[in-house]
Each structure stands twice: as C-alpha cells, then as structure tokens.
C-alpha cells in the first residue's frame, strides 16, 4: 500500500513542479527556480523552530516568503547593484542556503525530523508514517499527499485563471508591458507559486532535488512540443513516468527513491535529445538524397 501512496504523492509533486517549471523555462529563469528551492531552507527551519510541526500553515507561509525574498534579492542585486544575473543568482541562493544550514547545525542538533539528509533528498520512503486516519480505522492516506493536493489545487486554479497573463509573461514580456499589464505583479505571483511548490515538496523530495522536478521534465517536453498546452501535457507525462520507473528502480537497487526518480528523469531527457538528433540527421539525409535525385532527373 505504501508503494501506491509514494508514487501518487511523488507524481503530484512532479506535476506541480513541472507545470510551473514550464513557465520558468520559457522565461529563461530556470536557475531562479533552482535558487528559490535552495533559498526556502532558512524559512522552513525558522518556521519549524517556532511551531515545532512540519506541516503547519505557519511553516508554509514563512518558508514561501523566504522564496519570494530570494527572488526579490536576485532582482535587486542584478538591477541595483549591477552584478551579473548569473552571479546574483549564485550569491543569493548560497547565502540563504548557508543561513539555513547554520540554523540546522546550531538549533536542530540531534533532531530527527529535520536534518541535513532530509534537506538533500527528503523522506519520501517514510511519508506513510504520518497518516490521516478518520474514526480510528479509516485510513485516508499520508498527510503529505493531502498537502500536495492542496498545493496542486492552488497552482492549478492560479494557472487556469491566470493562464493568459502567465503565457504573455513567458513569451513576450515587452508586449505585455506595452499593453499596460503590471508585469511585476505577475512575476512575483509566479515566484510565489514556485516558492510554495518547493516548500511543500521539501518534506517529500528535499530542497535540492526538487530542482530536478522543476526543470528536467519541462525541458524534455520543450524538446518535443511546439505549443504551450502540449508542453504542459508532455511535462506531466514525462514527470509521472520518471516517478514510476524511478521508484521501482530505487526499490530494486535499494537506493534513494527521490534521487533515483530525478536520475531517471535526466536519463529520459538525454534519451529524447539523442533520439531527436538521430532522427533529425537521418531526415536531413533523406531530404538531401531526394534533392540529389531530383537534380539528377532534371539534368537528364
């Protein structure tokens, strides 16, 4: 039974992260997603320290705000301090992650719920320990699953109602500005959603590996699709297939489940890339030989 719940929960993590990842990727802000996912760490630690509960609302709010703060800091460093975009991302996330690590090593000494390993690859194997039971015996599934479902609802609704805005922001921000749209508002809305996703995924997949869910499936989808809706759909498909095959691979080899899922995701990406390269080059060859024969016939 725990197999089923792990795969289901991880799939929703993959969908949540993948949907937002598409928009990040199209805006050429993939590494900002990486930065946010690292930067929520101090927020999570602080919230946990004060509330003592890993799934409280306070925790989510606090940690989400840290992610938005990171997005703001990156913006500030690159625009006001005139540090290169790349470098301001690097500076911001290493600083916030370092703050989080210092907090963990000095406050959370010997704590079982939040430690460095958990930061890296989450606790997906043990999510079923924290379950929701109604009437003493009706088992409704792990708590993490419901947290993810709520996040999915928020993300889904925001994307559904704000689809036009996010799309415009992703493809042509100058045009959006010329229409008088407040692009800053949409930008921070997206950043808040990304931040929320990484926060709720923290418990399941850890702060570092969530980047794999955020970037790899959308990039794979981008290789094979030409329309945004298509890309979103393929992202979910690639994400879920990586989750399922990654899980069974991990069980078979007795290794980290999350690590294995992201690794499979990466393998799928490179497989698609290489497959496409081979197909393109053979297509070019066929076209070339066709042209040659046409040329020969014309010369006869």
């Amino acid at each position, binding site marked *: 039974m725990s197999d089923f719940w792990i795969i289901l929960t991880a799939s929703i993590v993959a969908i949540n992260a993948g949907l937002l990842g598409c928009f990040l*990727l199209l805006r*050429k*802000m*993939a*590494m900002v*997603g*990486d930065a946010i996912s*690292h930067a929520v760490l101090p927020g999570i630690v602080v919230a946990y320290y004060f509330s003592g509960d890993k799934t409280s609302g306070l925790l989510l709010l606090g940690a989400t705000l840290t992610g938005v703060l990171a997005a703001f800091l990156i913006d500030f*460093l690159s625009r*006001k*301090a*005139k*540090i*290169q975009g*790349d*470098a*301001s*991302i*690097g*500076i911001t996330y*290493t*600083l916030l*992650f*370092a*703050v989080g*690590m*210092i907090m963990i*090593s*000095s406050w959370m000494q010997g704590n079982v719920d939040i430690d*460095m390993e958990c930061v*890296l*690859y989450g606790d997906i194997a043990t999510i079923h320990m924290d379950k929701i039971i109604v009437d003493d015996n009706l088992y409704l599934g792990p708590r993490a699953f419901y947290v993810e479902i709520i996040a999915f609802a928020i993300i889904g609704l925001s994307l559904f109602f704000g689809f036009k805005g996010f799309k415009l922001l992703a493809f042509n921000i100058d045009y959006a500005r010329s229409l008088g749209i407040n692009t800053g508002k949409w930008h921070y809305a997206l950043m808040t959603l990304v931040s929320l996703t990484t926060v709720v995924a923290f418990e399941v997949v850890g702060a*570092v*590996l969530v*980047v*794999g869910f*955020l*970037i*790899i499936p959308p*990039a794979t989808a*981008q*290789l094979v699709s030409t329309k945004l809706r298509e890309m979103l759909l393929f992202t979910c498909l690639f994400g879920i297939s990586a989750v399922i095959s990654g899980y069974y691979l*991990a069980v078979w*080899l*007795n*290794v*980290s489940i*999350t*690590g*294995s*899922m*992201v*690794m499979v*995701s*990466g*393998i799928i*990406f*490179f497989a698609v*890339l290489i497959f496409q*390269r081979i197909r393109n080059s053979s297509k070019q060859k066929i076209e070339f030989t066709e042209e040659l024969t046409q040329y020969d016939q014309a010369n006869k």
Partner: protein
Amino acid sequence: MQTFIDFISFKDPNVFYVVIGMICINSSSALIGSFAYLRKRSLIGDAVAHSLLPGICLGFIMAGEKNMIYLFFGAFFTGWLSTYLVDYIVNKSKIKQDAAIGIVLSSFFALGIVLLTFIQNGGYSDQGGLNHFLFGQAAAINKDELILFAVILAVIVGSIILFYRSFIIVSFNSDYAKSIGLPVRSIEFLMTSLTVLAIAAGIQALGVVLMSALIVTPAAAARFWSHKLKRMLFIAVVFSVFSGLLGAYISYANSNTPTGPWVVMILSIITLISFVGSTKRGILARYLKARKNKSKILLENILKAIYHYHERQNLENDLNLVLASAEILKVRRFDTTELQKGLNQLIRRGFIGRENNNYFLTEEGMTESKRIVRLHRLWEQYLLKRTSMDIFHVHSGAEAIEHILSPEIEKELEKELGIVGIPKEDF
C-alpha cells in the same frame, strides 16, 4: 579567547592543515572564478560542483575505499563531463544555457545521491567520510590532501601567469581572439579544466551545494573595487582567503558545525559591504554622485534661465536686472521648492545676490551663466553643421551635454566652428 589563541598558534596540528588548505582552496577558486565571472559563466561552477558527487562515489566504488587519487580523478571526470554536456545541450537543442545547467546539475546530483545510498547500503567499510563532500568539513583535511591542494593552486597560478594574455582576450572577446588566430578552443579547454580542478579541490571544505559560492562571490565582490583585472584577481583572493580562515575558525570554535556555511556567510557579508560602500561602484557612491550631478544641473539651468530672461529684454550684455523667483519661472519651469533650494545654494556659492526676496547675478554669476549658454549654443551649432540633425532636434542634445563639456572641448568646438562669443541663434 583561549580557543582563538589555540587556533592561531596551531596548537592542534589539524588547524595548521585546515589553515593552509583553506588558503590554497580559496585562492584557486577565487582566481578561476574571476575569469568565469568575466566570461559570464558563473553558474557553470554550480553545475560542476554538483556533478562531482557521482564522480567521487564512482571513484570510491572502483577503489573500494577512500583512496584520494581515485576519488579525485572520478570527480574530475564527471565535473568535466558536466561542462561538456551543458555546452552540448545548448549547441544541439533549443534549450537555453541556464536550463541546461539546471538539467545537468540535478541529474548528476541525483545520480550522486543514488550512488551514495548504494554505497551506504552496500556494506562498504570506511565510507564514513563521504558525507563530508555534501556539506563540507574543513577539519577533515589531511596532509596528503594538503599536498594535492597546493599542487592544484600551483598549476592554476602557473597557467594564469603563462597564458595571462590569452585568458584575458578569450574572456573579454572570444570572437576577437578567434580572429587574431588564438587557439580559442584549446584555451577554453584549459580554462574549463582549471575550473574543474579548483572546484574539485574545494568540495572537501565547502561541500557540493555551497561550492559555487567560492567561484561566484569573491569575483562579484572584487568587481566593485577595481576595473583592472590584476587588481581584481588580487582583491578576490584576499576576500576569499579571509572568509575561508574566519569560517574555519568559527567552525573550529563551535565544533560540529560545518565550515562551508560560515565561509559563504562571511563572503556574502563582504559582498554586501562592497556593494554598499565601494568608492567606485558602490550604491552609496553612485547615489552621492547622482545627487551631486542633479544639483549641478539644477544650478546651471537656473543660471541659464536668468540669462534667457535678460535676453528677452535685450539686456544680455548687461545681465544686471534684479528679478523675483516668479520671473525666473516664466522663462523655464522649475519645481518651486527645487528652485528655492537651488537659489539658496547659488547665493552660498557667490553666483547670485539677494535683495528683499529678489535676486541678481554677481560678477561670477554673470560669467558662469554666459559660459553655460555659450556651451549650449556651441553644441547646437556643431550638431547642425557637422551632423545631419535638423533644427528641431539639436536643442535636446545640447540640453544634456552642456553640463559635462570640458574647457578643452569648448576650445575644440570654437576652433572647429570658428565662432567667437555667444551665438545669437537659439533653437
């Protein structure tokens, strides 16, 4: 205090290793990071650092123990592979560089985690230290590693000295480097290899997640203090080594805390100080400069307006009217509080005198206002005669440049145009 004395007197021989190790690691990465920063490839370091993890694990599996040589070569191999893959993805598909970095970084890191858990569950003995590579533990540096770090530093410093010219040209303008026949690909290959070397040396102390800070942050901080590459390299090294040593000390004083986060924290604080307080590019210096410029422009515009007022009454040769501030506003629109501030400042500088709330130009004020009007009109004439601009567009250009034209340029303009005195035409 006692721990501090213990630390600096190397009472614990380990401290000596840590200090020397930090100096080597931080200098190597700061040097290489400066070039990476100039090439706008700072985040490549991030991909490389994460990608070292599977290499280390592979090296461990192949050697069956923590053999430094195996670990290092494994790390070097996967680190190198990661930069190659990033370039491959960018060149062969529509994926952009930052996404490519993210893909490579997370796939390799995931592979590393898989291998790490494989090792942990695989019953290998002596695998305890591998965890240190994740978050960094400078205290774990031993004598053999120290020699390796020193060799790496020597290689990096040697290459930079030998290929200094080529590195600069490739970093600043690789197209130009190609055009003058430099072997750009080989130089880039060398730079990438040095980057991987520097990062591979550093993960022992900083850990894979934070290692990219050692590449990015010192260079970004040093950039605030100098425009010269040599000085920038030096400053980056100083910042980095300083934070490395302080970080190592804090980690030593509070045993059990990892070194990496403290080093990064101190580096970031240095960057923050640089960015606020740098005398050249700091936010404070820029703000003060902007304010000074703004007030200069305001004062000069007021003087100009007074001149125009006289000109309207055909009194531009005397410039001796006494006028109220309202009359200045008739010639040119100012914000009234700004105007008041500007007038007060002009009085303090002796350009303007006051007489019961009315104002008049002093001797200096007259020459100054003539100078500015003259610069403005000289420039208008220049644009009109020497460029293809028409009379409707020359004014705005002159309005901007009149405040910064130097006396030398003024003389040049005079010679070029053959104009003496103030041109009558105003556009």
